[in-house]
């Protein structure tokens, strides 16, 4: 009888151990580190924009500081070479950060009445990464530009 009880208890202890291990693996799975998007997510976001059409390097100029101290507010400038006439203008500009939890940062829609394709805004960067800007021209072609940056203090995932 006594021996029987011990067996029962050890089994219970063993089950508890297994349970703890399960929680540990679950915890690791949902940890903030896994929240960051992978480059594949960025590629997927780009394919969604272009619909699989080829993207040509050039024409797009993306400016971000090469070294960022705080990723919460990073000044980002994007400009596209274009005459901005009714026949030839920039339709939209998409900015994609492959290291952010959500790769899309912003999209702007321009018209010939924009006069020029120059946009400045302030973005969040979660990690040191390459940021891409993709411009869609009025004739349907896509051009891209990119910039690499080093972020020392990341945005987005800190505790409140």
């Amino acid at each position, binding site marked *: 009888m006594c021996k029987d009880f011990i067996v029962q208890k050890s089994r219970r202890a063993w089950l508890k151990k297994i349970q703890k291990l399960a929680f540990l693996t679950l915890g690791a799975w949902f940890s903030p580190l896994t*929240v960051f998007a992978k480059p594949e997510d960025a590629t997927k976001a780009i394919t969604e924009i272009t619909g699989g059409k080829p993207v040509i390097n050039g024409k797009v100029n993306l400016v971000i500081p090469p070294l960022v101290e705080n990723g919460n507010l990073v000044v980002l400038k994007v400009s596209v070479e274009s005459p901005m006439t009714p026949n030839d203008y920039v339709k939209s500009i998409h900015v994609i950060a492959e290291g952010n939890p959500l790769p899309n940062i*912003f999209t702007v829609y321009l018209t010939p009445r924009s006069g020029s394709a120059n946009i400045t805004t302030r973005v969040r960067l979660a990690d040191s990464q390459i940021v891409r800007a993709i411009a869609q021209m009025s004739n349907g072609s896509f051009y891209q530009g990119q910039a690499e940056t080093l972020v020392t203090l990341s945005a*987005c995932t800190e505790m409140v």
Partner: protein
Amino acid sequence: MSKTSRTSISMPSSAKKGSIIEIRAIAQHDMESGFRYTEGGKLIPRDIIRVFTCTYNNVEVFKADFYSGIGANPLIIFTTLATETGTLEFKWTGDDGYEAVNQANLTVT
């Protein structure tokens, strides 16, 4: 975030016809990304401005979609052609019924 908040527009009040003017538009907003946790481990829901539009005499000249990668108090600087004297209206719309509107007048010579 409240239903509306302070916004500010900075642009020239007059311009020559056909010239390019620069417009700076800023809105007061936390832009809660939806990726942050409280100390208790609860996820803070996303609360951001989604769309910004600029209409020039009721014609849309600029539109931007924002995602959670835009920093708090979103500032956006863009350009437009000064075509005619009139009013430029700026509108921000976001999560949880957020809406803010601002106007500016432009005299074209």
